[in-house]
């Protein structure tokens, strides 16, 4: 019922340009963000429990669970020490820049390798569809390679692929997703889809 009312409000507000409604909307967004932070506590609790159990049971790789918990605790202490008051403290920033940032960037850059291995494995002329996938991928990739006159043809062709089939396919997908999204929203409002409440 709550869901019904709240989502109904959101739908109705779309049609109502009045100020007070806009403020309501802003409030609702703020609230969900705040509740999200409370939820994070649940997450931390879950993380703590899983790793703590691992250590207690001396499960495989339990030593690493210690590292996770140590990282968690140290970072929490650094971030919450009373008196430091905000996040501009030296240690906290260094944890961010010299531990989180490098690992994050490196995980991200693993993609350069995975994208090449995926291309190597999957871009095979097995069937018509796979061949088309292969062909379009290759055209786009070799537009990078300077080959004199050929390059400008490739550049035109890749531009065409991006403008025509790409545009059309994305439109079709977007329209489909749009309808699906509206239908799902309806199903939620009317309580047909209730999996998110843990039952169906």
């Amino acid at each position, binding site marked *: 019922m709550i869901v019904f009312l709240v989502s109904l409000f959101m739908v109705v507000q779309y049609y109502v340009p009045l100020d007070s409604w806009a403020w309501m909307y802003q409030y609702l967004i703020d609230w969900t963000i705040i509740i999200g932070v409370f939820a994070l506590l649940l997450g931390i609790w879950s993380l703590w429990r899983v790793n703590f159990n691992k250590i207690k049971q001396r499960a495989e790789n339990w030593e690493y669970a210690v590292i996770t918990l140590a990282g968690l605790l140290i970072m929490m202490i650094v971030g919450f020490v009373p008196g430091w008051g905000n996040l501009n403290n030296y240690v906290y920033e260094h944890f961010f820049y010299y531990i989180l940032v490098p690992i994050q960037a490196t995980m991200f850059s693993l993609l350069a390798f995975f994208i090449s291995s995926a291309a190597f494995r999957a871009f095979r002329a097995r069937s018509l569809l796979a061949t088309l996938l292969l062909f379009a991928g290759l055209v786009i990739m070799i537009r990078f390679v300077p080959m004199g006159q050929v390059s400008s043809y490739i550049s035109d062709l890749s531009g*065409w692929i991006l403008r025509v089939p790409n545009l059309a396919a994305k439109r079709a997908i977007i329209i489909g997703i749009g309808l699906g999204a509206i239908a799902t929203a309806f199903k939620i409002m009317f309580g047909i889809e209730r999996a998110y409440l843990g039952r169906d």
Partner: protein
Amino acid sequence: MNGKQAASYVVLAIVIVAFAVSIVLKGLLVTVGAFLTLFIFSFLYKDNPYYKFAEHLFVGVSAAYWMCMGFWGTMVPNLFGKLYPPMVGPVMPALKDNAAEPFMLIPLILGILLLLRLSSSVGWISRWALAFIVGTTAGLNLIRYLRSDFIQQINNTTFSLYATGATGFNLGETLSNIAIFVSVMTGLIYFFFSKEHKGAFGVGARTGIIVLMVTFGASFGYTVMARISLLVGRMQFLFGDWLGMMQ
């Protein structure tokens, strides 16, 4: 002690020595960043203790990082700061004089309800809070779709098939426009669920999936560039910032 174990101790020793040398030469912070980078890269070869170390550290530190961000970035200014502004005075003086907004009690209560799920006896109450969040944001999403992509995309599809350029009728563009139109239609046909893909309808669906595949290939090919930039960025860090091999 078998050969494999011996080898792993040798590797450990090398890592420790290199780490120590690097600290002396380059300083602690860059060294830590560089070794963590290498640890993650080692996963490409296979799973190993160094990757495990970096992975577990990353998980723990990042969870705490976001918790702190959520607390100082959201809870303090938007919840406490609005419920009782003087409370946040010492840390965020700018907010001290704002008027209190009693409405903010609602998320506080819902948030506490959410935490009740940790108790097995009253855990069901947390579903209220969940319902609130899901309802609000689901409504938001619906509107976002309605407002943006969806209508915009449909509108854009009803364009003129004829294309005229500076020199009058433009055959190439016209053909492209027809191709776009047909492709959108067949793409939609592919997404029909309640009709068998047979006969003319089947041809349409088949054309649709062909267009989709070409698009996926193109997107894949285009993304390679972005991923290589990331790799080059990391190399700059390793060879430039850390080893000082580039200027």
